[in-house]
């Protein structure tokens, strides 16, 4: 899969051109447009005063992104292709890079389907538990959470991954406290504190990794780490960095009971679906991290 055609080309929003001057294949725009559509949906969402409109928009965009991801999966799986997409014609670190292969397309499809199912399953609860004027904001956060998860899936830059981990934390916290009661706010603070501890360790790990390797792009990081390991240089710092990154992500992914302490039925227990959002977010981050690790591993570098 990794050894197959690797097409690299800069792309603009409406006039995509490859490095050789030709047009990029249309499906290579899907990752960018998936994230872009969800963000636009989030911007438009506050215009809806009632939850029904917000639900329809969030559901429609989720299904559209799921369909686009399915198309991308089929296209990329057919020939095991993997491509890199440079936004704004600038190579990293000046611009931002997206990378997609069959694994990323599959993850994006999975996240989109889970989002659509969660929206459908939680529709009645959202309508009854959340105040009418705030329902569209709940759906806004659902769109932003999905956008963050897709950006985490597709990004080729480890610092961008950190930024989207934080964005997903904020969106997930807003979703947890959507019922707007004291208990849900307490649960949100617990979730936020643990997430911040995890992301703090992840950030210091990323910064140390950048200082050691001089790279932020995942493929280049993989190559440099393989080189350092082969030559036996920076062995201890690399071990510490690996530890920091893994502990950071592990803390973020830990599905601790943030409703612990409430012996009786609490907000989140009465509504099991309310717990599915942070769980989904945590699992998603762990899947995305595994995907990045696969791309970054020395085995993958040697395959390229």
């Amino acid at each position, binding site marked *: 899969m990794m050894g197959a055609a690797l097409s690299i080309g800069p792309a603009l929003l409406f006039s995509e051109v490859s490095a050789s001057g030709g047009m990029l294949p249309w499906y290579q725009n899907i990752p960018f447009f998936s994230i872009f559509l969800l963000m636009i949906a989030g911007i438009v969402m506050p215009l809806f005063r009632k939850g029904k409109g917000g639900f329809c928009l969030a559901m429609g965009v989720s299904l559209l992104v799921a369909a686009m991801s399915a198309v991308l999966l089929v296209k990329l799986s057919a020939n095991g292709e993997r491509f890199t997409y440079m936004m704004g014609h600038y190579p990293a670190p000046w611009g931002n890079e997206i990378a997609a292969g069959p694994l990323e397309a599959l993850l994006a499809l999975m996240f989109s389907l889970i989002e659509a199912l969660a929206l459908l399953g939680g529709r009645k609860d959202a309508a009854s538990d959340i105040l009418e004027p705030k329902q569209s904001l709940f759906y806004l956060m659902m769109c932003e959470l999905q956008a963050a998860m897709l950006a985490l899936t597709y990004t080729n830059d480890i610092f961008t991954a950190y930024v989207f981990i934080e964005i997903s934390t904020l969106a997930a916290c807003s979703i947890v406290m959507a019922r707007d009661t004291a208990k849900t706010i307490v649960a*949100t*603070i617990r979730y936020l*504190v643990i997430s911040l*501890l995890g992301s*703090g360790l992840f950030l210091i790990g990323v910064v140390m990794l950048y200082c050691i390797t001089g790279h932020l792009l995942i493929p280049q990081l993989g190559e440099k780490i393989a080189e350092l390991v082969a030559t036996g240089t920076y062995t201890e710092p690399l071990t510490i960095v690996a530890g920091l990154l893994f502990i950071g992500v592990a803390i973020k992914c830990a599905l601790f009971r943030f409703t612990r302490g409430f*012996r009786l039925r609490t907000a989140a227990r009465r509504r099991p679906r309310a717990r599915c959002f942070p769980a989904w977010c945590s699992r998603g981050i762990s899947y995305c991290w595994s995907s990045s690790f696969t791309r970054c591993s020395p085995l993958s570098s040697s395959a390229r």
Partner: protein
Amino acid sequence: MKEFLQTVIAYRYETAAMILFGIGFINLLLQKNLLRKVMAFNVMDSSVFLFLAAQGYIEGRIAPIIVNNDLSATTYINPIPSGLVLTGIVVSVSVSAFFLALILRLYKKYHTIEFDEIMTLAKKEAE
């Protein structure tokens, strides 16, 4: 000992950053006062930015703004860490604002920002 001190002085920014990170991390984990938790989070994140800025700084070079049409890379410091710090600060400020908004909501409800007290009151309410 002398060598150790020389190393610490040579890497004073990095050393300070690591100490501050530890202080921030421990306080974020253990403080019961929510406002102190926010401050600890900011100390922790700022220490990472100090570490990053220290790595990008090169002694004797100037900020990466072209002066006198000098396009030589050896004149300026590494601009990438500065860009990363800027992005990190934006993220950190957003999280702090969200955290403070949550604390304000809890204070309005329970009239305290001590997390243990809030938990006790919340448990009583649940019972």
